């Protein structure tokens, strides 16, 4: 106030100069009101105050709500730096990291935006996002540089009051709010499945699985799986899951087939599903499915409801049940209606002594038998009782020709001995069984093969070789060697004789002799091997056709067949051919030698022997043998050809047989060396015979020519 009011200094000074004057009136200027006095500058602090208070209020209003999250470990979480994100938007930050009182977990104190914190439900999920490299890709790469963050996932709730949460060890498979169905899969062995493996539907990824875990009560492995929303509609009780991990290699009639799933499934394992049959009921979350090892197993598992309303029964067998195992199917008219649950032996009182019978416990599915879904044990047993009265019996059957595995067949045998369903003291209901005729069939098939094997093909060969050897021995014997010289000399004489004038009269008779020889040869030809060879060839063709039909699918067998034929050729045929060649050579030498004139008496014997051989040949003993053999081979081949359709594994043996037969046929066949050589030999013999006849005639006419040399 002092600054604005000019002090009355001037008045004082003037009063001093003009002497005493009446006391000057003290005039105060009109007092300005406090408000008028107030400077506008005061607005500044007021404004500053308002703004500061505003900022403070805003800070207060926006300050986070402190929540506590407990983690098993908090790797990389740092107070003040680690953020909390929801859908990748920062909603808070970690303020403090400490331990729980027992040091078992890490307590992370974080402040979260008030708006969001008020919608946090008690089951909100928190997990630490870290960089992760897996077969399915790389996630959390941004956290490599920025450090980890905590991701939150929850379904907002109007009045979320929860402030303490239990953090997850790893990211959940299904985010909160993601629509879908959670199911449980059960398997025996999870070594091909790892956490996060995809679930595929026709190759499209529609879900994941969580970490497999062992169940406490058993030896199986279960894992939760999540199928995302639109696809979970495909799940019914008729859905089957199977393992598509890795790749499968199968060798079938279509050749080698390699089946590779997608890359992620190759590495982490994968599961595919499909609805195998219609009529499945919709299911709730948490439904338990069995995981089948492959698609075929899944598709063949029409057996539903095991454990739900399956009816357990016992079947007692007298013979061995080797090949029957727990899980082996029970079939009714080829349809799987149940499975073997247990196999054991029970003591049965049979009159005085006790006998051991093998009891198989089977579970039968009423639904598979055609009974309504709600049919219980009573209904099923009634149904079976009626069926047993009409001849239904259990018997063992092979599941396939290639394995020794057995199945239980519920066969309808109206002529079976009457039997009923029995109820034992231990409450077990026993279905009557009959002894299976299965082993007989195997015996029959083996018998056919044994008989084929026992055909005397080898003996035949040996006999033929022996014949050749004896012919050769005859031809190459010392006496025979000398015979040609004499024979040649004789022939010279004969030529001279024939060339002589007195032999001119001979031609007529000679012609008759030739005709006779021709007749012999003709007869030989008519009755000889040709027709039979044709027959043989026909049957060989049939065999070859059968063999070709059987072996068309198995080219490897053809190679083996070739090898066998080659072997057969290499052994018997060559030996035959060699023997024949040796024979022919010897014969040539015999005929080509100069000393043919000296015809010894041995020649007659030799000729007689040869003619015996020829006669034997002509009368067809050997050929009959061959024909018989071939006929039986052919019938055998026909039966084999019939069996071939159901017995592809027998074809190898058949091939061997065919190879042997073929070798034999080749040895006697039209194109073989033996045949031509034999023909030549025969021709030579004919010539010789002609010459001998001429000689005989000449001697008959002119006996003294033997003495005088003319």
């Amino acid at each position: 106030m002092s600054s604005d009011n000019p002090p009355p200094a001037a008045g004082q000074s003037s009063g001093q100069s003009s002497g005493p004057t009446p006391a000057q009136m003290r005039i105060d200027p009109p007092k300005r009101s406090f408000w008028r006095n107030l400077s506008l500058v005061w607005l500044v602090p007021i404004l500053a105050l308002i703004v500061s208070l505003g900022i403070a209020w805003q800070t207060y209003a926006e300050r986070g709500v402190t929540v506590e999250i407990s983690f098993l470990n908090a790797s990389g979480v740092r107070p003040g730096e680690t953020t909390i994100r929801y859908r990748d938007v920062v909603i808070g930050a970690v303020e403090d990291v400490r331990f729980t009182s027992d040091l078992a977990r890490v307590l992370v104190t974080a402040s979260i935006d008030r708006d969001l914190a008020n919608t946090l439900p008690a089951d909100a999920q928190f997990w630490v996002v870290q960089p992760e490299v897996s077969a399915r890709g790389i996630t959390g790469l941004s956290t490599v540089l920025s450090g980890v963050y905590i991701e939150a996932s929850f379904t907002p709730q109007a009045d979320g009051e929860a402030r303490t949460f239990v953090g997850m060890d790893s990211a959940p498979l299904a985010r909160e709010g993601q629509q879908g169905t959670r199911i449980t899969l059960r398997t025996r062995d999870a070594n091909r499945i790892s956490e996060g493996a995809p679930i595929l539907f026709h190759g499209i990824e529609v879900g994941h699985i969580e970490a497999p875990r062992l169940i406490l009560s058993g030896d199986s492995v279960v894992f939760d799986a999540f199928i995302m929303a639109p696809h979970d509609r495909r799940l019914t009780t008729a859905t089957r899951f199977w393992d598509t991990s890795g790749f499968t290699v199968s060798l079938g009639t279509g050749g080698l087939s390699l089946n590779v799933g997608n890359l992620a499934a190759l590495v982490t394992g994968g599961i595919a599903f499909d609805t195998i049959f219609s009529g499945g009921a919709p299911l709730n979350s948490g439904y338990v499915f069995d995981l089948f090892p492959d698609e075929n197993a899944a598709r063949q598992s029409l057996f539903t409801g095991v454990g739900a309303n399956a009816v357990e029964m016992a079947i007692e067998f007298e013979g061995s049940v080797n090949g029957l195992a727990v899980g082996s199917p029970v079939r009714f008219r080829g349809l799987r209606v149940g499975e073997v649950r247990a196999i054991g032996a029970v003591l049965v009182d049979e009159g005085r002594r006790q006998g051991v019978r093998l009891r198989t416990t089977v579970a039968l599915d009423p639904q598979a038998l055609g009974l309504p879904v709600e049919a219980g044990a009573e209904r099923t047993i009634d149904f079976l009782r009626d069926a047993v009265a009409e001849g239904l019996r259990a018997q063992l059957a092979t599941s396939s020709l290639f394995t020794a595995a057995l199945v239980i067949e519920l066969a309808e045998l109206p002529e079976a001995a009457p039997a009923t369903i029995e109820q034992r003291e231990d409450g077990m209901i026993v279905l009557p069984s009959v002894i299976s005729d299965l082993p007989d069939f195997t015996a029959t098939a083996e018998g056919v093969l044994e008989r084929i094997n026992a055909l005397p093909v080898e003996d035949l060969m040996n006999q033929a070789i022996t014949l050749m050897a004896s012919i050769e021995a005859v031809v190459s014997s010392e006496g025979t060697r000398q015979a040609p010289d004499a024979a040649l000399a004789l022939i010279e004489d004969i030529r001279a004789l024939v060339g002589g004038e007195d032999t001119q009269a001979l031609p007529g008779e000679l012609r008759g002799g030739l005709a006779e020889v021709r007749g012999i040869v003709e007869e030989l030809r008519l009755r000889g091997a040709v027709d039979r060879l044709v027959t043989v060839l026909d049957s060989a063709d049939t065999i070859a056709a059968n063999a070709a039909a059987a072996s068309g699918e198995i080219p490897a067998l053809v190679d083996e067949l070739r090898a066998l034929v080659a072997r057969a050729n290499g052994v018997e045929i060559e030996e035959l051919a060699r023997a024949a060649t040796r024979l022919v050579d010897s014969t040539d030498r015999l005929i080509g030698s100069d000393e043919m004139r000296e015809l010894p008496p041995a020649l007659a014997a030799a000729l007689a022997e040869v003619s015996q051989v020829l006669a034997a040949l002509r009368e067809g003993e050997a050929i009959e043998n061959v024909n018989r053999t071939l006929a039986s081979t052919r019938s055998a081949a026909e039966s084999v050809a019939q069996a071939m359709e159901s017995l592809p594994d027998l074809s190898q043996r058949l091939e061997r047989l065919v190879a042997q037969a073929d070798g034999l046929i080749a040895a006697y066949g039209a194109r073989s060396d033996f045949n031509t050589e034999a023909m030549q030999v025969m021709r030579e013999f004919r010539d010789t015979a002609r010459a001998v006849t001429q000689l005989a005639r000449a001697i008959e006419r002119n006996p003294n020519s033997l003495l005088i040399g003319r």
Partner: protein
Amino acid sequence: MTSAQENDSARSLTARQAGLVGCHSCGRVHPMGTPRCSRCGAELHSRMPGSLQKVWAWLFAGIVVYVPANIYPMLLTTSFGATTENTIIGGAVELMHYGSYGVALIVFVASVMIPVGKFLAIGYLALVVDPGSRLGGRLRHGQDLHGRQRLFEVVEFIGRWSMIDVFVVAILSALVQLDFAATINPGIAAVSFSLSVAFTMLAALSFDPRLIWDAEQDLN
């Protein structure tokens, strides 16, 4: 403070006592009561009207905005996705932790001691020169008018150097914009602090140093 000085000042005649008023802008002397300078046309006041009131207002505003300047972060350092916030005191403490005692001292002196000292100094001067203030009267024991004048000069001089922190923040935020690797942004405190400095400077400016010497006359 010495008796000789007091005698000197007691003997001296002020312009006001002489019925004169000097122009603020050109220095020409006019008789008291002249509303405007006849030379430059500036308003003539023997003492600045409402000076103390303005001083108090600016001082108060400066103190008000000094509070958020210390509470809120001065620097927002974002490095590889992680954001660090530093308040003035927090930054100084952190520097001390890292062993940079010298830098910490500079920051502390420039950002805390000087502003607070200025508030105290201006408040003291405003109280002391106000004859109507009882608190001022109690503080007014020794009439060291020269000391007050020196204090005022120091406050006025130092005002412009209080902006060190703000300069640092401004330069860093302009230069360090390396996107993901490192980014520095000014926080609310930077604005508050610069406002606070500005307000205290205005407070010092509003103070009419002639008021200091009025006390001399009052003594007489």
